[in-house]
């Protein structure tokens, strides 16, 4: 198993684009983890904002210009990156935990538990994700915690489905059967035996879904239903700047937009490569 993993790691690093993606992602993560080290001002601290600095084009004080509140776009981007990443990661982790647990239970026990969970999933999947999130956010109002929950509600289904499918095939395999024969508890079998054998597909899906969650958050924020502009994510920075994009103050939305693109592309490069590496069907 260890060797296998190592081989995957080696294989991962053979793709230059994927390595590039990983490097960029790591750099951005450092920025997001320690925003105060890299930014000129704390965009949340209102005592640091002065309207007199409103809409300054990029200059030596404000590298990427300022927005209408006199907020330094570069600093706001770094803090925004932090929030975008946080929303993407938090919602993905939450949906993995919830969706995966429900999927494992659903697949392992079957019966009415399975029916109920999968019916709920069906109903939710018969509906575009963005609409669900949109309605939730429109009625709850903006907020980082709220958007994490909204995205979790939207995304758990995908993991539940995958986990269920994997469990259905895994539980028939020898190791699970023998664990049962040895008198292991259901809980033990699910989380001790089956879970470790089903992580690969989940990791791949989760990586791609982080990118999706970030896009969803940005889109909702763009529609004015995501993260408040007082604690801007990249999406709400773009939305805020979009109001003045055509008035000549392009820097307020173009730079956050580019950073968002770079972030998502880097995550997708990693996800793509992981899928290739972990998908035995595409290998000979």
């Amino acid at each position, binding site marked *: 198993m260890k060797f296998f993993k190592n081989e995957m790691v080696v294989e991962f690093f053979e793709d230059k684009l994927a390595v590039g993606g990983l490097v960029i992602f790591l750099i951005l993560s450092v920025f997001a983890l320690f925003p105060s080290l890299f930014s000129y001002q704390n965009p949340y*601290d*209102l*005592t640091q*904002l*002065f*309207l*007199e600095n*409103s*809409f300054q084009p990029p200059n030596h004080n404000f590298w990427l210009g300022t927005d*209408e*509140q*006199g907020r330094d776009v570069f600093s706001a981007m770094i803090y925004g990156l932090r929030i975008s990443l946080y929303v993407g990661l938090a919602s993905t982790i939450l949906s993995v935990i919830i969706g995966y647990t429900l999927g494992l239970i659903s697949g392992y026990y079957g019966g009415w538990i399975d029916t109920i969970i999968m019916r709920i999933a069906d109903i939710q999947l018969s509906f575009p994700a963005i609409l669900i999130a949109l309605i939730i956010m*429109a*009625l*709850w*109002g*903006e907020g980082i915690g709220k958007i994490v929950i909204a995205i979790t509600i939207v995304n758990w289904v995908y993991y539940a489905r995958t986990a269920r499918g994997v469990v259905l095939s895994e539980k028939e395999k020898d190791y699970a059967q023998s664990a049962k024969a040895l008198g292991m508890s259901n809980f033990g079998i699910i989380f001790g035996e089956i879970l470790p054998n089903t992580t690969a597909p989940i990791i791949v899906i989760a990586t791609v879904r982080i990118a999706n969650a970030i896009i969803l958050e940005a889109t909702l924020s763009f529609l*004015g*239903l995501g993260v*408040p*502009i*007082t604690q801007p994510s990249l999406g709400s920075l773009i939305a805020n700047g*979009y*109001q*003045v*994009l*055509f*008035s*000549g*103050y392009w820097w307020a939305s173009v730079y956050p937009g580019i950073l968002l693109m770079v972030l998502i592309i880097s995550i997708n490069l990693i996800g793509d490569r992981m899928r290739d590496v972990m998908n035995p069907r595409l290998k000979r």
Partner: protein
Amino acid sequence: MKRLTVAVAALALVGTMGVAKTLKVGLASGAYTMDPQAFNETATNSILSNIFDTLVRFDENIKVHPDLAESWTNPEPKVWIIKLRKGVKFHNGNAFNADDVVFTFNRIKNWKKSGFKGKVSMIDKVEKIDDYTVKFITKKAFPVFLRKLTYVNMLDKETVEGKSDEWIGLHPIGTGPYKFVLWRKGDQIKFKANPDYWAGKPKFDDLIFRVLSNNATRTAAILSGEVDIINRVPVVDVNRIKSNDKLNTFVKPGLRLIYLQMDQFREKSPYVKTSDGKNPFLDVRVRRALYYGINEDAIIKFIMKGFAAPAAQFHPDVVVGYDPTIKRVKYDPAKAKKLLAQAGYPNGFSVVLDAPNNRYINDAQIAQAVASSLAKIGIKVKVNATPKSSFFPRTAKQDTSFFLIGWASSDGDGSSMLDGVVHSKDDVKGYGRYNNGKYSNADVDRLIEESDANMNPASRVKEMREAQQIAIVKDQSIIPLHYQVDIYASSKKIKFVPRTDSRIWAFDIK
């Protein structure tokens, strides 16, 4: 050669006569219905004003002028006799007469879904005296009567009676300068000239309203010539439009005041954190400190790009009840800090400022700027800007401690704001529905109630000013920020007339 001349002449003829003249207007929002009595909302009212006539109409400076009413008398405080214009026809050829007036008022009074009830609620009875004379009896003496009538569009009794509300909502037939052609919802509304309009044929053969709700696209549309006029020019785009030599811009002071209101009725307010656990807004010194501590000049300069007028009271100068002696205080953070210290909050306190983010011009940005200003006098403000769909229900439930909101004195009379925002909340008498900070002062209440029934304009204004003196200067019940201004842009090919009531009245446009 001769032939050529003829051809050129023919072409010129086609140019002046054959080609229909079209006026294209780009609006920030469109109409919700074609029923002039359903939804009382500025954009819908503005569009429908081109189809329907009212008994009296505001001019561009919100003075009352005769429209379908030729003249009126007020023999007793509660009685108004109105003489109707003769020979006026609806678009379907039916004659306009007193029956239509009585029908129209009764429809609003009896139709529970009408948004115009507030305009007729003081009217007790409408009676036909003869075909061209109508008598109105009000519940009490009602000085704002005529101004309220400017919102009551005349319907044709024969056409409308017995029709479903849905039908009326799609088939507008009025007596106005333009006739309805088509309505592609969310996209455009098309009218054509009514050649039989009683005041003469309109200048334009076709009138098209296009809905361009996105600020950027609206600007792009006027710059590219897709439309001839736009309203609500984004403040950040004004200079760009000004620099285009084919376009004019117009700045017209509006009626809407943007102000801050705060919880003035609870000992403990839900969204305030203070050292002593009390509601600081109960102390007038704190309220006044906020007034001194907000750098409104900077907000106007940087957020509104200069397109707003600083406010010191409830109404702008065109509104009845304006008090020229009330002046805005100078931004003075030091004084604000001193006042806070006197009130027992030398280190300030923290509070959530609620604001809508899709209702007023730059609403969320203004709230942030307010927060940024107050941060400098030690008050930590967290801005909670939400869509109007969650903002208004919250304020209605007083689920807020401090909020940014707006009020337009749409009648051109100060009574609406005094009644709705300043008078103590009193659902039985119908006062203070928007007074969600629940400011209450018995003297102010008395003055407002007296002025509401005072038919003597001079003493009435005096009472209104007195109420303001107490509510603003003494009690600082709200913190006025600024009056919005309406900004329009139009092609230089046409002569546009901006109006105080924010409507686009195409008949005046040449």
